[in-house]
């Protein structure tokens, strides 16, 4: 079974995001970018399935600017077999919306015919949490979102998935082929080791464009404004419990 893993290049989780002065979005000029952490977990899960003998090949796909090849190289170094880069933007500030991403992935999936798609549950930049679900609808495939465990039954074409839901866990079986979107607790991704990064340079990377696949990536949503959270006001140190109670009552008026 072939597994397809979409990976997105996003602002690095260590970077303090800053809104552009015109409010049109987050400033990404000169900012460190890396693989979306949820997608990294998806890549790791695919590799573990392959190591268990339950998958034959792992194909990673990224959609965006040309530099997205960096995150594909990371995924290849971790252990994916080959990569497809779909160039759909020439400016890093142009976010490709989930529907366009899902449409592009659908085209890729029609060519590649994977038995399973493992994706991150959402990208940490726009937090849409939509691509996996839309892809499932477009393909008519089953979906299992917010997964924390994934067991494949190759003989019966079934995946058993534990989902992280509000206040607990839910276990479901979905029929393959399926779209599984993964949550944080699924695994801890491995390091891309130096020898593997060297070897990954020789792994195949195919380049396409959104136009090649006949998908229009023109945004359908317009961003009205982007704002930073209000600055936190300085705290004060109180000297006693009674002073604290007094202030909560009379100044903050919360008790």
């Amino acid at each position: 079974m072939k597994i397809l893993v979409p990976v997105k290049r996003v602002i690095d989780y260590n970077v303090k995001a800053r809104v552009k002065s015109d409010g049109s979005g987050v400033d990404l000029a000169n900012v460190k970018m890396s693989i979306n952490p949820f997608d990294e977990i998806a890549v790791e899960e695919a590799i573990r399935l392959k190591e268990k003998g339950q998958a034959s090949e792992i194909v990673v796909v990224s959609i965006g600017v040309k530099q997205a090849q960096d995150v594909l190289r990371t995924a290849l170094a971790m252990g994916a077999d080959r990569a497809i880069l779909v160039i759909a933007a020439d400016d890093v500030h142009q976010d490709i919306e989930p529907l366009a991403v899902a449409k592009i992935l659908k085209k890729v999936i029609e060519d590649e015919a994977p038995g399973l798609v493992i994706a991150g549950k959402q990208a940490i930049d726009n937090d849409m949490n939509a691509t996996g679900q839309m892809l499932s609808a477009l393909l008519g495939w089953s979906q299992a979102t917010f997964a924390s465990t994934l067991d494949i039954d190759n003989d019966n074409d079934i995946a058993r998935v534990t989902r992280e839901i509000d206040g607990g866990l839910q276990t479901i079986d979905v029929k393959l082929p399926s779209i599984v979107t993964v949550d944080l607790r699924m695994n801890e991704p491995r390091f891309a080791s130096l020898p593997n990064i060297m070897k990954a340079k020789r792994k195949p990377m195919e380049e396409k464009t959104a136009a090649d696949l006949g998908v229009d990536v023109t945004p359908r949503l317009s961003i009205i404004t982007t704002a930073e959270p209000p600055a936190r006001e300085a705290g004060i140190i109180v000297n006693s419990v009674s002073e604290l109670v007094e202030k909560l009552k009379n100044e903050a008026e919360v008790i």
Partner: protein
Amino acid sequence: MIERESMSYDVVIVGGGPSGLSAAIRLKQLDPDTSVILLEKGSEIGAHILSGAVLDPSGLDALLPTWRDMDAPIKTEVKEDNFLMLTETGKTKLPNMAMPALMNNHGNYIVSMGNVCRWLAEQAEELGVEIFPGMACSELVYEKDDAGIDRVVGVVAGEFGLNSDGTPGPSYEPGMELRGKYVFLSEGVRGSLSKEIIQKYALSEGHEPQKFGLGLKEIWEVDPANHQEGTITHTMGWPLGNNAGGGSFIYHAENNQVFIGFVVHLNYANPHLSPYEEFQRFKHHPEVAKLLTGGKRVAYGARAISEGGYQSIPKVVFPGGALLGCSAGLVNVPRIKGNHNAMLSGKAAAEAAFEAIKAGREGDELAAYETELRSGPVGKDLKMVRNVKPLWSKYGLWRGLPLGGIDMWWATLLGKPLFGTIRHIKTDAESLEPADQFEPIQYPKPDGVLSFDRLTNVAFSATNHEESQPCHLRLKDTAVPIRVNLATYAEPAQRYCPAGVYEIVEQNNEPKLQINFQNCVHCKTCDIKDPTQNIDWKTPQGGDGPNYPNM
């Protein structure tokens, strides 16, 4: 003994700053078949680069003469150059004509060296250099030659996943041994491998001790009405006065950004001094506050600077390799520039290695590099100004500054400095004096608008370290911080560290040194300034540390 994969190259380069990248480019220019690997501990090239910077393009002119046609991120020519002496509320502008000619910034550029390095890395990769960011070099590999002398044959890079006690964790990766006919150490100031090499081969013997400064920098996006692209201003005087040498820089770069920085020479004596807080209060000077009001700080970082100059350059070659750039210490202090020398040193080392490899040599000393560095353009640049820093240190600001100026004028006119060569004598660690000899300094509280507390600012360096790894700031003796540093010097690490790594906390009613290594911005000040020289800065896991944008 850990089993590691190994690969051999002609030249292994440790560190992707201006010197290492220049060496890589030059090696490939001379012979495209030379195999060159460059390893960088930052998560990407540029992530750990922090510099002012006003770039003297002479290094680039020598390395890539057509750089002006290569879309380099070097666009903002210096248009106006100011030098101000500050008092708490006032300023005196020194006339430009009083400045020695070699201080002139005409033809120089305001750049982000981080971006320049990213661009240099693209050029190097196009020439076929293999560049691996996120790979820290944690060890040198030695072998004995026929005469029984240790020579450097390579490095270990890319070790990941150690537990905090140093044992291999569940996802341990042993890393690789990268072997080279020559190993270039271009780690920047106080590199951890360079420090080991300088000690092992006694490279500083017969030279003055290296001297350092701590540079702190913020990038501000200012109100367009206050922005004057191409203007640079340097200041001295307030707030440091006679407590320490140093001063500020204010560079108006592109896109309404201003690079504002503060340098404190690390030979200060008063352990109560806090370079970080000096920088923060400096921004409240009316001249500076006027510029920053209505603006926004977008990045913060700090890095030690080598300031010893000509007399402190150690021997730069050792069996199997060489020290490049600020691993050797090539900053021209009065000109406040070192990037041009870093690039020239990389070029010179590459040329020496190319000749040696062509002649079938390997693993020996590249004497031709040593000679070229001292007698070529780098040596000439540094030799002229070699007395300025020791004069400043010896006579303080108000007498040292004009004396340094006279010495430079003399050198400009007569070709050699007035005072011969003045020695530095003490290391920066030895300069610290007991805390009880000084009044503690009361610094104003940050206002959150122009000035910020340390931890808020550290978040703007985007630094991070995998928490489960061993602390990379090693104490040789764990009792010394309390017994000596706290008792005698009021533990100065709490104040000189620009990232709030060192904290004295109470535990069971006893003071205890807590090391928050996750905050470290890799500036190396602790390794330099600790009065007991008890702190050893080792490299943490690759990819950790700051993620500087266009620093």
